[in-house]
């Protein structure tokens, strides 16, 4: 039996209307075929490749060409992309704005990436800016956040979060905190906390609630990876163990409650790595270690199966 047979039966039984039947049958029989994903993939790859090429070209020829030859075309491209996007995109709204033209989305992304190249060039050219490179990075991150919200653009939001993460890393490295790994872990937790608070705050204010996933995925992964790293570091405080167990537990519970099973898997995987790392470090016997892995992994499988049965099938 084929999909078309089901559809015909449902139409005859009155479960679906004739127009619904025709619209769905056109998809099932592929009389209608969308190349939306393919066009987006080509644009995304095109933007990434172009910016990589621009960065490499500027790096290679900046001293030979001079400042104007680099800055004028770059600025023109950034301004052009932003002007195009502003002219073609709907007005700002706190709610999700469905994109009708992918070119607008990628123009904004291209503008932000090119602006990053421009800033990098300026930072290197002007000694005065060189000392404020981290401040510029933070400012550019803020600008990307504004652009992401103005144009409802997830790519630019990811860019903004990545830039903010870069600022945390660069800023703290300059303060010498990475000389002590525990400080580096605190810094990573600070970044995760900042992202989580920012995401939660904007969601609570009703501003682009659909962006919350991007914040949560980053915050949870950075936080859990950091506490797991703390557990695996034998010189670190035992508090990391408590943090890892509590963090994994909270993530799993939150994932189950909100039926977001990616977070259940994050909590399970990071929690398992932390606990296994701790146990295996104290087991000197190889056979016992393997036996532990068998028993623990089977226990996790049983637990996940029970969970899957309880919560039913969710994406």
């Amino acid at each position, binding site marked *: 039996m084929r999909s078309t047979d089901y559809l015909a039966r449902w139409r005859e039984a009155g479960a*679906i209307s004739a127009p619904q039947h025709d619209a*769905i049958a056109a998809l099932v029989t*592929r*009389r*209608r075929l*969308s*190349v*939306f*994903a*393919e*066009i987006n993939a*080509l644009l995304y*790859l*095109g*933007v*990434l*490749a*172009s910016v*990589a*090429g621009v960065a*490499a070209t500027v*790096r*290679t*020829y*900046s001293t*030979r060409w001079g400042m104007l030859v680099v800055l004028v075309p770059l600025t023109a491209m950034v301004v052009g992309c932003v002007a195009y996007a502003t002219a073609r995109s709907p007005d700002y709204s706190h709610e999700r704005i469905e994109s009708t033209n*992918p*070119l607008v989305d990628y123009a904004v*992304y291209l503008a932000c990436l090119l602006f990053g190249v421009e*800033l*990098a*060039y300026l*930072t*290197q050219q002007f000694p005065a800016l060189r000392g404020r*490179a*981290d401040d510029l*990075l933070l400012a550019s991150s803020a600008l990307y956040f504004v652009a992401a919200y103005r144009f409802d653009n*997830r790519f630019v*939001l990811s860019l903004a979060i*990545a*830039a903010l*993460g*870069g*600022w945390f890393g660069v800023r703290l490295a300059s303060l010498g905190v990475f000389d002590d790994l525990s400080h580096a872990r605190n810094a990573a937790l600070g970044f995760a906390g900042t992202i989580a608070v920012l995401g939660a705050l904007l969601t609570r204010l009703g501003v682009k609630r659909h962006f919350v996933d*991007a914040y949560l995925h980053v915050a949870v992964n950075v936080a859990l990876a950091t506490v797991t790293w703390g557990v695996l570091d034998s010189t670190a405080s035992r508090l990391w163990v408590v943090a890892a167990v509590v963090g994994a537990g909270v993530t799993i519970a939150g994932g189950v409650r909100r039926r977001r*099973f990616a977070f259940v898997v994050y909590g399970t*995987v990071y929690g398992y790595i932390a606990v296994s790392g701790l146990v295996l470090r104290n087991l000197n016997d*190889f*056979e016992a270690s*393997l036996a532990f*892995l068998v028993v623990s*992994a*089977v226990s*996790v*499988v049983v637990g*996940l199966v029970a969970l*899957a*049965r309880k919560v039913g*099938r*969710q994406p």
Partner: protein
Amino acid sequence: MRRYSADDEMRVFMSDAVGEWTGAGLLSRDQRQALEPELSVGLRRTGRMLRVGLALFTVIAGAAAVGLVLVVTDLSSEWALSVVTALLAVGALKLADVAAVTYRLYRFGVEEALALGGVGLSAFAAGMLASALFGSNSANTAWLFASAAAGLMAVGIYRCFGFRYAPVLAMVAFALMPLPFDSLTPALKRLIGAVVCATAFVAAHRAGARASDDVRMGDAETLRSAAVAGMYIFLNLQLSGAVIGGTVPGWFRWGTLLLAWALPLWVVRRAIDTREPWLLRVGLGALVLSLATTKGYLGWPPRPWDPIVFGVVLIVGATVLRRWLNAGSAGERNGVTARRLLESDAALMRLVSLTALATPPENAHATARTNEGGFAGGRSGGGGAEAGY
């Protein structure tokens, strides 16, 4: 032999499709609820993420169990290793069977990991058997046996469980069989690999023509797309050069360059005719790769601005295609549209947008370099490619 009835699998397929149509606004939620009872089956299913998690932990448990058996038995002879791993393979496949038949798990991660573990163990057992039979220096023969066993077992698990990726795995295993044989020239290895993939394409085409339901047709389409991708990878010297290596005659080199363009063009044309989305994606992907690798084929030196040209071609190509489609009647040409029709496309883009996290802006890199004190570029004169700004 199949562990799930065709009717059950078709109901599962329709249940997923109804969910997708509801997400796209083609059906109401009430209609979905009304249709669901007809599509319910006695199979246990789970979502994508839990499926991945279950598969991961099953693999950990299985690998540790195999390691434990091998450590405890302390086997050293190839015969013994072959027998024990063969028994473990049988055990893994039996457990997968129990999971599917008794517990009615369907694409649950557990039965998939167990079955694939059985394939891997069978391959290892076959390799050990070849070493025992032909001597431990016969690594090539061991590879041959292992690949053949993996391919045959993958076909077997497809027949039992219907995993869509199993025939693809079988094709890859068979295509890689000649790889370690030094007596074969690199050109011949590529040709054998491409012929294996072409055979898989023909087999999938026939299977698709015979298919009586959409599930089997989808399986055939997946294999067809993978077969084209395999053929392309074997024939594009720039892509597979690192794996297969060696020099090839001039006629072969230019012949493969011709094919690296002709094959994707033919595939895209065919995919539009037959309306196969995955075949179209593979064809377009191959075209993009041909564009990226042709300069290397021609032996032209790489330039820093190459990616700009490449990127602009992609952007212009996508823009022209979109505009051309939108200019058609009702934004379509021959039924092909640039608009999003299903929610799954939007979900895919949301996922892809997260990859932008891995590409921080250039000023983040530059700031990091600055803080490391390394921005002496350009001072050596000539603006070397490795220099900073």
